């Protein structure tokens, strides 16, 4: 079965399964365990113009079917990424999506500009869940005006396909998504982690060094599906869905809810090769449910009024 996915600006994936940002490092780390060339794409860990230190440990905490993390976007900066990791990734026949971050609109603009026209970079994913230092820590993704500003700044600096990543921690994700679409994004990726906290009852303090953290993993799948399903009816640009995917059946859920492709994060920690298995099993599972192409699946659970064709 043909699993190709055609996305805006000529971004073509060999299949709809992309490694999510932050759980797959910059590429080399998992290369012993994962067939990178067989992935639809790889979204690397968020990169900023300058290196970021990240949050104090502990940085992860297990929760029921979930994972809290407060990495704090530690990264070596865009120059180190270009020198050290990009040449490695270029060797693989997969699409490289660079997840970009900044503390100000200007920083997003800088890193987007630096990555434009670089061989081996196929798309940008704008992570707007970073704390906005100008607005006292609230993230860019929690306010439609700021989401618009960041998206527009990146759009102005690049011809690459741009996807912007939604925060689930808002009253109305659709309003943020519409601002992102209006600002010229080609796609939306959804969702980033859900704000959470755990208490270490032995230490009598919050478990994470960063106090609160982001919840990921199967626990959040219903939240992610709700947002994909709603946003798919509120914007026309394609959606890359994620949150808790463990199996090909989960991929079908996201596609039926309106996503055109998916990303897989936390489960990779448990089963490094799970993404490859999902890709291998997808055709059989689709056939088992009576589908013969991805386009039949995409949006199949949306109300009749919003068919996938209208949305593209």
């Amino acid at each position, binding site marked *: 079965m043909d699993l190709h996915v055609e996305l805006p600006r000529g971004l073509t994936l060999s299949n709809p399964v992309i490694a999510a940002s932050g759980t797959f490092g910059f590429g080399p780390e998992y290369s012993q365990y994962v067939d990178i060339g067989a992935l639809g794409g790889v979204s690397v860990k968020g990169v900023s113009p300058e290196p970021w230190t990240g949050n104090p440990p502990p940085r992860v905490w297990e929760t029921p079917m979930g994972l809290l993390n407060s990495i704090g976007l530690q990264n070596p900066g865009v120059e180190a990424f270009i020198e050290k990791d990009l040449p490695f990734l270029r060797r693989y026949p997969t699409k490289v999506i660079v997840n970009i971050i900044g503390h100000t609109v200007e920083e997003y603009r800088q890193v987007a500009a630096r990555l434009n026209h670089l061989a081996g970079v196929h798309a940008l994913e704008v992570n707007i869940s970073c704390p906005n230092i100008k607005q006292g820590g609230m993230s860019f993704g929690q306010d439609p005006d700021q989401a618009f500003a960041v998206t527009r700044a990146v759009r102005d600096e690049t011809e690459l396909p741009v996807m912007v990543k939604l925060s689930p921690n808002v009253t109305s994700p659709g309003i943020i998504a519409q601002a992102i679409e209006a600002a010229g994004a080609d796609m939306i990726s959804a969702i980033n982690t859900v704000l959470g906290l755990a208490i270490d009852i032995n230490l009598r303090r919050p478990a994470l060094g960063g106090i609160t953290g982001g919840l990921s993993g199967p626990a959040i799948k219903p939240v992610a599906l709700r947002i994909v399903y709603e946003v798919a009816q509120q914007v026309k640009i394609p959606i890359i869905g994620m949150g808790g995917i463990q199996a090909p059946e989960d991929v079908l859920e996201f596609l039926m809810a309106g996503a055109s492709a998916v990303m897989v994060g936390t489960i990779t*920690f448990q089963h490094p090769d799970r993404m490859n298995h999902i890709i291998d099993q997808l055709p059989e599972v689709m056939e088992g449910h009576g589908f013969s192409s991805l386009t039949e699946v995409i949006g199949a659970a949306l109300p009749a009024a919003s068919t996938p064709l209208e949305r593209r």
Partner: protein
Amino acid sequence: MEDEQRLRCLIVARTLPAQGHVELIVESQELSRAIPGQFAHILTPGMLRRPISFSRIDPGHGLSGLLFQVVGSGTKWLAERSIGEVLDVLGPLGHGFPAPDPRKPWALVGGGVGVPPLYAAAEKWAQTQAHTPEVIIGARRGVWVVMENDFQDLGIEPRIMTDDGSKGEPGNVLHPLSLWLDTHVQAQVYACGPTPMLQAVRRMTLGRATTYLALEQRMGCGIGACLACVVPTVGDCGMYYQRVCTEGPVFRAEELMW
């Protein structure tokens, strides 16, 4: 997949080395090539794998040991495994201890389940040393002391310290370590145990010995991708977080900013 490093390891033996502790011996050529201080990242029913150091390594027979205390859901599950079952393991992971300098005095300081990787080090290198290594084992309770017999089988009589004084001498590992340092120059200290113990060992030995500490930190991936397992270290321009799973678990004491 240039090299399939996700291993299915048969459990070939299971012992109860102390109250609430289990040691599993697993069969795997790859794991048995581990260096002491490296670890196995073991699949359990939880969201995350569990990191456990190698307690013994026998490349000749392709065997290695995993000795752990039951502290939560994952170790409870592991403790319930039987001979003949198979574990799903990533490893050996991380950087282990360097081989000690054979001519210099060597002390191994372990607290609680920090002892197993030090036993693995002694097993591998003790016979290369000019002098019998000093082994100091600390535990909160006497019934939690592990691997005393194993050291004895190597011809080493470990010094046992327990908080409750129910075994060995009452007190912690620091006092005997301090006495030993007083009488040994160019000393090499290898330590593993709870973070407060390692911090104290670091402070005590800074400038007096070459000290390697095997650290614990909450992990995600275990292979360097997620940046979860960091510790603050000395960087070129101030503090810099390094990964316990990749640059560690073993760090030189001077590297740490703790």
